[in-house]
Each structure stands twice: as structure tokens, then as C-alpha cells.
């Protein structure tokens, strides 16, 4: 729905999208503190944001608000019976998620210098969900690991060679889809779960020897 709102909106560039023509910088007078046209600054800013958001969410998870959300996920009915206004908690959670997505959108815009309605379409949402599934659901680190894994695999698949007249790289979505299906079937807790299982297997192995 939001997609169509922006698709037909002249002010925001309609279906052609919008170029961001000014440099995203932080300057104090003539002293430039942060210049996001510089790839290195953008990289460190993004890394910093990732760390900050990760730490913030970790704190939030164990805060009274985070505990209440966990309770709502398990048993909303009982949460109301013991006195929690669950609507407000859920509204807060969605607002927070929206704000963090906005931050991600800002960084995306600063990186590419170009935005269009496609970014709000199904593909982008699907990518985000695939990242989470790949990394391991119900876990912040899983989402981060998933994002890196997804982007890495994307690059590998897009660079696949042409074999016998068929350009394998052009059909990367097919390989990506198959890969996700395999992950869901054989590693339900994602790449992170797989890594944990491998390291756990190793440590119990040495325990037996010792």
C-alpha cells in the first residue's frame, strides 16, 4: 500500500525515483565533521550504528518493556489479566521497528544517492526476511550474521559463469531460493544455529577424550 502511495507521487519522483543531490555531511561552520560521500566515513558510521543498535536492543530485551513483549509473544491473554496494556506495548514495538528501519533507509540513501519506490516493494521486504531466516530467527546476532551471509552469497551467485550457453549468474534467484529452502529444511536455526551445533559437537568430543 505504501508502495503505491509513493509510486504515484510526483513530489517524491513517482516511479522514476529520486536522486539525492546534496552531500550528506555534518559540518560545523567550514569544519567538516562527517562526510558521507567518503566511503570510509560511511562505512564506519554504518558499523557504529550497527553496534549501537545492537547494544540498545540487547539492553531493551531485558528491560521491563522487553520482558513484557516476551510475555505478550507467549501469552497475550494472561498478560492482560495481570495488568499489562498490551496494545500500547505492541504499538511501541512497531514504532521502534519502524524507526530502526528508517535509520537503515537513511544509510541506504546515503550510500546509493538514489531512492525509488521499488525499495518499499516486496523484494526488499523479502530480502530482509531471508536474511533473518538465513542467520537464525529469534536472535539479534542471527540477523546480523544472516545479513552478511545473504549479501555474500548474492555476490557469489551473481558472478556464476556461463555454462553451455546458460548464464547461471543471471538466474541467481533460483539458486538463492533453493539455498533458503535447504537452510529451512536442514538448519532450522539458521547459519548461527549451524555454527553453534558444530562448535558444541567439537567441545563434547574433546570432553569425551579428556
Amino acid at each position, binding site marked *: 500500500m505504501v508502495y503505491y502511495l509513493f509510486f504515484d507521487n510526483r513530489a517524491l519522483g513517482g516511479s522514476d525515483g529520486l536522486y539525492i543531490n546534496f552531500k550528506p555531511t555534518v559540518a560545523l561552520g567550514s569544519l567538516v565533521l562527517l562526510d558521507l560521500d567518503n566511503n570510509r566515513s560511511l562505512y564506519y558510521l554504518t558499523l557504529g550504528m550497527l553496534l549501537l543498535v545492537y547494544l540498545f536492543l540487547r539492553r531493551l530485551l531485558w528491560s521491563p518493556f522487553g520482558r513484557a513483549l516476551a510475555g505478550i509473544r*507467549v501469552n497475550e491473554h*494472561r498478560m492482560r*489479566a495481570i495488568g499489562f496494556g498490551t496494545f500500547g506495548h505492541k504499538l511501541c514495538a512497531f514504532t521502534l521497528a519502524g524507526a530502526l528501519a528508517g535509520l537503515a533507509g537513511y544509510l541506504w540513501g546515503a550510500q546509493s544517492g538514489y531512492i525509488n519506490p521499488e525499495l518499499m516493494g516486496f523484494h526488499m521486504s523479502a530480502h530482509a526476511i531471508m536474511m533473518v531466516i538465513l542467520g537464525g530467527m529469534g536472535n539479534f546476532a542471527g540477523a546480523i550474521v544472516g545479513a552478511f551471509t545473504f549479501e555474500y552469497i548474492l555476490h557469489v551467485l551473481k558472478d556464476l559463469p556461463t555454462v553451455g550457453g546458460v548464464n547461471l549468474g543471471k538466474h541467481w534467484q533460483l539458486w538463492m531460493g533453493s539455498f533458503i529452502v535447504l537452510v529451512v529444511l536442514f538448519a532450522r536455526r539458521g547459519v548461527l544455529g549451524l555454527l553453534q551445533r558444530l562448535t558444541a559437537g567439537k567441545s563434547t568430543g574433546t570432553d569425551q577424550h579428556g
Partner: protein
Amino acid sequence: MADTLLHAERLTKRFGGLAAVNEVSLQLWRDRIHAVIGPNGAGKSTLANLLSGDLPPTSGRVLLGGQDITGWSPEAISRQGLGRSYQKTNIFLPFTVWDNVFLAAQSRDPQQPWNPLRWLRPASASRAARARCEAALELTGLATRRDAIAATTSHGEQRQLEIAMTLATEPQVLLLDEPLAGMGQAEAEQMVALLLRLKKDHAILLVEHDMDAVFALADHLTVMVNGQVIASGAPAEIRSDANVQAAYLGEEAH
């Protein structure tokens, strides 16, 4: 009476043409256990749902500590001082016993969304909530089981946990829906002892099937059949009431 904590007046709930609860009135006092009995489908649980706000009444009103709470949400009624336990165990199965009760205890901390500490400080930092949680576990005899995952505890322990969560919200009125359901003899005796202890500080409404327990505990009995109150009075009166024997107690003997 001055100490009426809960007053229901002509409460009615209709589902289509069926009156599941029809013009039921009752009063609860501190230090008294009021039991509601009746055959299956008599409307006992619907009555409990009307009092706790899980269902809005079609007509009638409910006063809790003098405040009209008719049509309030369950969370608002809980905050006003009514604690409810459920017939079908309604707990947080994947959490530990402690976390179950702590969530309930935490709900009574002042809500300060503008205070950043509420978002960044661990929930367990609240001393008041910890104290409420410990007191509730102590009372219900679950103190030694605090680290057990709720799903792995026995049925009796889950029923105790149900009560502990309710107590952690420090209610004045307790609404207990079949706390003895599915319990063995020893567990039931423990629960009866617990209810007698709780009676001192609470007004208790007990919805119960177990007749031995009801007659051992209740100071006042209300008998419901088909959504209607057919008798109300002291246990001895109810026992000898001809209507009740015909409609309910006699039925059990068959």
C-alpha cells in the same frame, strides 16, 4: 456492609438468545470465601469472565472497592485490584517459574515511559517487584522450584503457579476459577490450606467443582443452574435446600 470489596448487580450476559448468565448479583467481603457452584454449563466461568473483564456484560454492573468497573478492560480491572486465576492453566510455559511470577509482579511497578531507565535497566533491578515475586512464591510453596521451566513442572505445581502469579499483583479480590481442577488428594489438601491462609487478607470468589473442598472452605454459597441463581446462603442452608438437591446435589449422587 462497609467492607464490601466487590459488588455485582444483576449481571447478565446473552449470547444471541441464550442467557449464559441471567441477573446474577453477589457481594464479596474481605476474610470471606464465597463459592459459586453448579453443573457444567451453568454459567460459572462466564460469570468469572464478566467480573474479570474478559467479557463485557450485556447488562448489570460491577463495583470494585466502590468503583464502577463495568465494561473495563481486563488490564484496567487487574490494576484496580482484582486478581484472577484460570480454570485451564494459563501461564507462560517456556519461562521459568520465577519469570512467570516476576512478570506479574513487574506489572505493579509504576509505569514511567518517559524515564529512559525503564528502557535500559534490566527488569530484575526492581527491588519492589522482586519482593512481591518472592512473597508470592513463598506463600504458594513454590520457592524451591523457582528455576524450573514452567512447562516441566507437575500439574499441581502449575495450579500453584497460577495462584502465585495472581498473588504477585497484590490484589484485594481473588477470583479463583477451579483452583483444585485435576488435583490429587494431597495436592488438593495443600491448596485448601493455602486458600484458608489467603482468606485473611482477601475477598475470595471460588468457582469450584470439588464439593468436599467447597463445603470445607466456603462461608457463603451461590448455586447456579442454566445461568440463574437458584439458591444463595450459608453452606448448611444450601445442603438442606430442596431446590438445590433436586437440581444439582442429587444429580451428583446418580
